[in-house]
């Protein structure tokens, strides 16, 4: 401050003004930041959780909050561009009408679609069944694709191209999610890259500078003690393991590698078993559910939910088996965690993929002329997009119910049992720890379902928002009342980036089914905005053909090879440039590190001299 004040005397008037204005701007920005932090959702709750349980668990809850916001924004997007115009024109507000262009050359049989929207007197439980399975009265609401059977919406004199809007809104949702996730993960990526290099003084750093003297709360102090102890123990164990690995003889290495190959084969066998069972169950459930005449409520519900039940079972048993097997593979602890996580991620996401694949094999089952006129199995699936949307809806509801059921019927009784019953076996079980990776995979699984289902069921993001909102409070209450504080605090910095990376994998996986169904499976002719097109994607080329000639030529030019190949080459060049730049920076960093070591050696030499001189 002193040096600045002396500088000010010598500065000219212009520079003085600049400095004063930048100071006041900084002040305004920091005050705005302070105010905006009040608006953030659940700021206080997450702060409390951080204080009591540490940063890793807090990162789970802020991840949950991010998903709530993301789903809410996606919902607003889909609602305002797709649902709102349809609803407005349905009720005739603003002089709006729907234009349904009758199809030109489509077989009559393909357009028969009669959803049984519950006419007449029905039992109450049918409502419940419909709510849980998305059939009946829900099928004809704006929840599913089948409601949007309009080719254009006229609002006063404007023509609103609903099919194009539907397609573009779905793409925009996915693109928005991608951009937002990437933006969030860039910060974490930079951090993990910087801290990744192992400093050559890690023990001294942890011991001499490990205690944060700013801690005033005894609970936080306890947490810090535990985390320091765990970090030191982990580092020591890793060093011991590395030593052991280096000491392995050839015979031992052969044994370990063959054991690892064997265990990987077991893992693959388990995965294939899960996939096959999901495929069979989905086919069975689809066949049985088309048989509407069965009125036994429970059996019908059970058959409808069979795929979800099997997937949830697989998602539950699989990780347990994986964490049991990985102990025999004798990897370093950090690598163990990552490998188990990768296997569980693959299991969960591939389960959804298998479900969708089996659905499609049913829909495009063209074995015995079943789909002759329309290109898809029109008898069983007159409106197949609604069916896919229904499966996603069922998965989501079931996932939500399972989380609630687990918390109510497993966590709370366990806590009651542990606090009131003092027999040994119960105490040995103890309270459950909050397993972060399992919980994170759960919500990523739910989010992937939501992304896949957004195209087929535009209001699904709204359900996802409400679901995650409720899950936040459920998990928070369960955490505070039934979980013990973890004995093993986890490194928080890498977790944030890891969660977002896995979420990104889920998003990429969600792109694939949506892309395939838009581009290659013929859209259903009986319902939906794409009745007059062969596939859903065709609406885009059709719209482009209506543009003025100049614009058309430009767009065709961009899509042609003459443009794509040079563009691709330029992008590759830019990428190589950045890779080279990153390599050069890394080299500089290495050189600086070496210089530090040399400096240290010089200093050591001098200190030795001083010590010698002191001795004499």
């Amino acid at each position, binding site marked *: 401050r002193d040096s600045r004040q002396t500088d000010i005397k010598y500065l000219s008037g212009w520079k003085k003004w600049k400095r004063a204005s930048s100071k006041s701007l900084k002040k305004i920005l920091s005050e705005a930041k302070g105010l905006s932090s009040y608006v953030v959702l659940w700021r206080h709750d997450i702060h409390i959780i951080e204080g009591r349980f540490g940063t890793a668990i807090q990162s789970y809850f802020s991840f949950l909050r991010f998903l709530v916001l993301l789903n809410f924004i996606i919902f607003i997007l889909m609602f305002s561009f797709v649902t709102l115009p349809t609803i407005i024109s349905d009720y005739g507000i603003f002089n709006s009408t729907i234009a349904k262009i009758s199809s030109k050359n489509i077989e009559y049989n393909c357009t028969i679609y009669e959803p049984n929207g519950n006419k007449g007197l029905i039992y109450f439980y049918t409502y419940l069944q419909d709510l849980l399975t998305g059939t009946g009265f829900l099928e004809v609401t704006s929840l599913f694709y089948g409601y949007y059977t309009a080719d254009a919406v006229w609002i006063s004199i404007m023509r609103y191209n609903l099919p194009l809007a539907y397609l573009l809104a779905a793409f925009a949702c996915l693109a928005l999610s991608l951009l937002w996730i990437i933006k969030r993960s860039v910060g974490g990526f930079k951090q993990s890259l910087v801290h990744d290099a192992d400093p050559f003084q890690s023990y001294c750093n942890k011991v*001499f*500078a490990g*205690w944060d*003297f*700013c801690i005033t709360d005894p609970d936080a102090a306890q947490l810090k003690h535990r985390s*320091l102890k765990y970090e030191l123990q982990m580092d020591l164990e890793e060093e*011991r393991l590395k030593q052991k690995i280096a000491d392995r003889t050839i015979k031992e290495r052969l044994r370990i590698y063959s054991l690892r190959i064997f265990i990987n084969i077991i893992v693959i066998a388990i995965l294939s078993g899960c996939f096959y069972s999901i495929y069979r169950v989905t086919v069975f459930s689809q066949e049985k559910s088309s048989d509407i005449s069965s009125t036994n409520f429970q059996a019908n519900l059970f058959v409808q939910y069979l795929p979800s039940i099997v997937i949830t079972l697989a998602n539950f048993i699989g990780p347990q088996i994986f964490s049991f097997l990985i102990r025999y593979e004798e990897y370093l602890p950090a690598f163990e965690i990552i490998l188990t996580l990768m296997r569980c991620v693959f299991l969960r996401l591939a389960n959804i993929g298998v479900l969708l694949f089996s659905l499609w094999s049913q829909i495009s089952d063209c074995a015995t002329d079943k789909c002759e006129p329309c290109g898809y199995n029109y008898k069983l699936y007159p409106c197949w997009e609604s069916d896919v949307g229904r499966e996603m809806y069922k998965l989501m509801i079931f996932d939500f119910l399972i989380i609630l059921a687990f918390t109510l019927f497993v966590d709370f009784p366990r806590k009651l049992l542990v606090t009131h019953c003092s027999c040994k076996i119960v105490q040995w079980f103890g309270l459950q720890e909050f397993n972060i990776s399992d919980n994170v995979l759960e919500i990523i699984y739910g989010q992937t379902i939501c992304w896949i289902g957004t195209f087929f069921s535009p209001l699904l993001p709204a359900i996802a928002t409400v679901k995650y909102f409720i899950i936040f409070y459920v998990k928070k209450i369960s955490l505070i009342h039934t979980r013990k504080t973890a004995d093993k605090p986890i490194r928080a910095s890498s977790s944030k980036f890891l969660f977002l990376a896995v979420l990104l994998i889920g998003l990429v996986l969600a792109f694939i089914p949506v892309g395939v169904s838009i581009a290659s499976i013929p859209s259903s002719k009986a319902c939906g905005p794409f009745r007059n097109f062969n596939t859903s994607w065709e609406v885009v080329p059709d719209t482009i053909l209506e543009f003025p000639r100049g614009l058309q030529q430009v767009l065709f030019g961009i899509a042609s090879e003459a443009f794509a190949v040079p563009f691709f080459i330029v992008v590759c060049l830019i990428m190589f440039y950045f890779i080279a730049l990153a390599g050069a920076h890394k080299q500089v960093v290495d050189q600086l590190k070496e210089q530090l070591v040399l400096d240290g050696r010089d200093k050591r030499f001098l200190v030795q001299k*001083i*010590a010698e001189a002191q001795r004499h």
Partner: protein
Amino acid sequence: ELTFLSKREILLAYKRFSELLPKEERENARTRRVPKSHILTLPELRANPFQHRICHVFSTSEAGDDSMSFEDFLDMLSVFSDSATSDIKSHYAFRIFDFDNDGTLDRKDLEQLVNCLTGQGEESRLSSMEMEQLIQNILEESDIDKDGTINLSEFQHVVSRSPDFASSFKIVL
């Protein structure tokens, strides 16, 4: 000029110090000494595992009872403030970590230091094998003249290259 604290911080320190004294003695707080037990009720020191060492190092009491006068208190806050140089901080850190006050950090000091870090109580200590391994690693990294102890220059050298030291060795009222 004598401390690294600003005027505002000194006034705040004076206010907090006089709150530690019983009411009748608050008038001449500048000359009174506050017993160690009162100092340890400060929230900033309450949860600190090095609280006793801090009081001992900064206390200039001839009676050896670790009581602190206002000047001692200011001294302590100045060393722990944001604007103190890294040299001063590492000097005092060395004195705080030197549990037996012999001018070097030997194995016993390091053992006590690690026990302070991992928490009070039997179950929160490292096993003796882990402790051995840890102390071996620390000495390998910092003991330059290989005499089995860390003297002041070695300590300052090691701490100067530690990225977290400046931000963790800080107390702000």
